[in-house]
């Protein structure tokens, strides 16, 4: 992805203030609805962290030494993402200030940011392993939200929970279809090249 070129001061100021406004002013509004909380607030926090990782906060060399393959940081980001998908902690982040702060910091700086550092580095096979796991998690969430007979979050309505389940299903299907779409529309050349490179490298 090509990012617009701005002077670094501007970038730092813009991104940090965007994060501050989003995390402190918008999140309390966005999390009033479960569907917005899950599909806009949480990905939004992660995306801002990702943008910071691509621009103003490159990976420090000490971390890079421990994250040569990109796997450790990608794993940390994935586990934190799973943590915030547990209904109990969504409720906690609404009811308890400490969990709220934990959410906005961890999703941006321990999830989105390391993703930006790691995604450039991970091998094509690892990346796809995580992709498949991500899609599987979307299906797991679909199953959880669509089959639960009771409310999973005490701060949200049951009707919205079912809607969230359906949204997870649509996302899961779209993400599963994405590779197929890429293959059909000619992006496969790039993928096979990458695979060949890795194969040769492994040999």
């Amino acid at each position, binding site marked *: 992805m090509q990012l617009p070129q701005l002077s670094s001061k501007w970038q730092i100021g813009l991104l940090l203030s965007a994060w501050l406004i989003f995390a402190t002013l918008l999140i309390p509004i966005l999390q009033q609805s479960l569907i917005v909380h899950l599909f806009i607030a949480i990905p939004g926090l992660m995306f801002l962290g990702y943008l910071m990782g691509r621009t103003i906060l490159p990976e420090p060399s000490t971390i890079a030494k421990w994250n040569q393959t990109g796997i*450790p940081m990608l794993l940390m980001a994935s586990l934190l993402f799973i943590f915030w998908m547990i209904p*109990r902690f969504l409720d906690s982040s609404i009811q308890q200030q400490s969990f709220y702060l934990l959410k906005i910091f961890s999703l941006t700086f321990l999830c989105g940011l390391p993703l930006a550092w790691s995604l450039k580095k991970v091998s094509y096979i690892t990346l796809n392993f995580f992709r498949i796991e991500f899609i599987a998690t979307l299906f797991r969430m679909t199953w959880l939200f669509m089959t639960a007979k009771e409310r999973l*979050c*005490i701060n949200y309505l049951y009707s919205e929970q079912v809607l969230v389940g359906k949204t997870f299903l649509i996302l899961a299907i779209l993400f599963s279809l994405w590779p197929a779409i890429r293959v059909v529309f000619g992006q496969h050349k790039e993928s096979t090249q990458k695979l060949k490179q890795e194969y040769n490298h492994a040999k």
Partner: protein
Amino acid sequence: MRDLILTVFFLCAGIALIYLKTDSFQAFTAESARRYDIEKQPIKLSDYQLIDVNGEQMNFSDLQGKTLLIDFIYTRCPTVCTLLGSSYAKLQRKIIKDNNLNNVALISVSFDLTYDNAAALKAYQQRYTQTPEQWYMFVPTSKQQLHTILNEFGVVVIDDLYGGFIHNSAVHITDAAGYLVKVTDWQNNEELNRAITSVIK
């Protein structure tokens, strides 16, 4: 090598974090967490100020010495509370008949301060039963009292978008010393009976 060490570390730390924060993989929702926490560590309840069906003010501590089955309602409720009401009426008949349950009382607390007063509570109760014996209905005296009650019980009340409310409905059992010791489903009779017997003992 470093990568491997860090990967293993994150994997263990992640699993440990989720294990610790979900009470050993037992409570993945706030409601199950609430029940788990209360059973592990009963909560000493404050002395709330309440208004009964006759419009008289009383204190929660006046009921100490009894085993209380407390539920939360609002009298305009068209769904759950209606079921809860008839379920409580059934329970009331049972505890009146059963001599072992003489010291058990049913409590319904309304959280709808705008609409519910002594008269509304009385009408609600009369919909389900002819006698108020061993079944007390209350509304908190103030918003602040209500807030304290809901907070201590861990009950969250939200708007249902149709002018009513949705809340985590359950039966809360307190022991004779005024501790909240158990939260259980009211739909499951067996579980409820088991819970009552365990608290009485």
